């Protein structure tokens, strides 16, 4: 993407971000290797837009989300937020910045403390960061709860008294209470039922419109990502393999992995019996990724060059980035 430092329109700019986790073994717990969870990814997110990040489990999409929020210290690379390099900030300064970027987690059943009433779950961060004064505190919580479709008189209830969809609303309220401008949504709807899923997606879209929020939306569900995103990035084994505007990516996928993903997604219409490209095999281990193009072990179009050379992640025109030797052809 853009190699110059932040233009004003980009809220977030990620450059060559990598995160390796050490593998320790033996009696002395020596580092014997690295799991390359995220390797050299770059992208930008314009203000007020949504970037969807798709990929299979273990492809590093969650790690990417956490690393760019500095929940993990990045091994390499830079994260510019409003022109500020988060990777270089001191802990105290980073802590001051925290309310700006929030996260919504996947499983609303395990991400809420069962011993805290809802008002406390939502309000803890508000107090810690002094978002509003003591006098407005309760009103602020109530306002946020109603904005997220919760009834404000439920504020003294505990999480177990709520259904899955309502719990996810609590998680969203917790993030919103700090008045963030950027939210990482890590699979926020995959644990929910279909009809509830629609409610939560609509809520997220509506909040974005009202508050001008910027989202990084991590999901494995291509149809959900298409619905909510403006731009979509596809990850495979820690690397970004394709990145483009939503319409472009779904209409004209260039990377064979993206093509396979799109063709594997089931379509709710019995008349559509597609000729699918079904990928054989499983994802290789990120501790020992294949040489050259990481996808070559499963790629239907693999040729000699793929095993030796790592393809460049480059623009094929109109901001459609792809990492494949044969993307142009």
């Amino acid at each position, binding site marked *: 993407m853009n190699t110059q430092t932040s233009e004003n329109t980009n809220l977030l700019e990620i450059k060559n971000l990598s995160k390796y986790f050490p593998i320790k073994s033996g009696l002395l717990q020596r580092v014997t290797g690295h799991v390359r969870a995220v390797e050299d990814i770059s992208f930008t997110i314009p203000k007020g837009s949504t970037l969807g990040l798709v990929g*299979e*489990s273990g492809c590093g999409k969650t790690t990417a989300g956490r690393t760019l929020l500095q929940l993990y210290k990045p091994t390499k690379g830079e994260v510019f937020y409003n022109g500020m390099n988060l990777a270089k900030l001191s802990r105290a300064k980073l802590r001051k910045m925290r309310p700006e970027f929030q996260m919504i987690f996947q499983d609303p059943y395990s991400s809420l403390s069962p011993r805290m009433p809802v008002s406390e779950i939502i309000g803890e961060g508000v107090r810690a960061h002094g978002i509003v004064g003591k006098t407005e505190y309760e009103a602020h919580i109530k306002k946020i709860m109603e904005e997220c479709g919760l009834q404000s008189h439920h504020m003294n209830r505990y999480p177990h008294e709520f*259904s899955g*969809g309502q719990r996810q609303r609590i998680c969203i309220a917790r993030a919103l209470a700090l008045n963030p401008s950027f939210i990482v949504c890590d699979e926020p709807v995959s644990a929910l*039922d*279909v*009809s*509830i*899923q*629609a*409610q939560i*997606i*609509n809520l997220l*879209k509506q909040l974005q419109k009202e508050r001008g929020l910027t989202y990084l939306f991590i999901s*494995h569900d*291509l*149809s*959900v990502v*298409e*619905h909510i995103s403006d731009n979509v990035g596809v990850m495979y084994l820690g690397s970004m393999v394709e990145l483009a505007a939503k319409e472009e990516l*779904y209409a004209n996928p260039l990377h064979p992995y993206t093509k*396979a*993903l*799109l*063709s*594997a*997604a*089931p*379509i*709710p*219409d*019995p*008349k*559509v*019996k597609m000729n*699918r490209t*079904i*990928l*054989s095999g*499983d*994802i290789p281990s990120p501790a020992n990724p294949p040489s050259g193009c990481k996808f070559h072990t499963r790629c239907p179009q693999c040729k000699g060059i793929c095993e030796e050379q790592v393809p460049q992640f480059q623009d094929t025109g109109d901001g459609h980035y792809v990492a494949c030797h044969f993307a142009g052809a």
Partner: protein
Amino acid sequence: MSEQAKTKNGKLDLRAIAKANRAEIKKYETAKKKHHASPSEYQTKMRDSNNLIEFDNLQTYFFTDIGTVKAVNGVSFDIPRGSTIAVVGESGCGKSVTSLSLMRLVQGPQGQIVGGSIRYQQSSGGQAIDLTKLPDEEIRKIRGKEIAMIFQEPMTSLNPVFRIGKQLGEAIHIHLPELSKEEVHKRTVALLEMVGIARAEGITKSYPHELSGGMRQRVMIAMALALDPQLIVADEPTTALDVTIQAQILDLLRELKDKINASIMLITHDLGVVAEMADYVVVMYAGRVIEQGTAEDIYDRPAHPYTIGLLGSIPVIGRKVEELYSIPGNVPNPIHMPDTCYFKERCERCVAACDGNYPDVVELSDTHKVWCYRDFSKR
């Protein structure tokens, strides 16, 4: 137990409910123990000889200390031979309990099949039998052999301390005790090869944690197919898997179904998977079937407001909508179900008749049935 007795000073008397329900459980449990059924008690006749399974007004209740949950409340549908039938619905709608009732694996003593029947046509011109009345020793001969099940979570359904070969061989050994160890092993390897596992010989010596999610689900499928079942019950077989692996598994299931000429009862909430796999679709809501028909009936001409809502609420690749339709409200509390249509509270297409009793079936065509009061004549 009457409704008045359950309330004291206008509040629910939980102790009375708990006591009544425990008595109820005891009644069913003692009835089960006494059962020395002669074949005439469970032998029956199929309504249609083409059907493999006929659910007829099945009722499975859970007697809990805070009230009775009618998890399956009068479910009737057929599984024709050689076809795939999908049961769709949100969590808690009773789709899993329906399949567990079929396998007679409902969690006792709270869960009891209290009424209705499940007729099953045995293979090779055998008698039709009622699975709900079958004594335990008899159902054991059928379960796992003629009717097999694939569970949702492959990690938790495989035993972590036994090797794959042993777990697979166990079922074969139990149902076919005359086979020698070598023969069982040979069959195990052949099964693993059939589900597309390379290096099958080596895999028999692996433990479940050494395999990926897709491989584990293949092992589960191999286990289900071990004895050439007539019916495979697949309870959310791909929910825990990635899309590319899901495509592999669905492809495999379809291929194997034709190979051994079995029927599949697919339980899922994923309408995309249903469209791809199913010949017939049964939509359940709050323990009842609300609509059933062929896949084309359900997807092209959905009639029940709930089905319409469900289909509208999923994002579809290539279909642009500004906002997804969302069904308002939540599933009603399963303990206090209303006497009216269960969907009434959430329905946006109510008519005057909806205030009355639970609606009767409306047959829109030979295959398409719906339980709703709306006027379908104009469609």
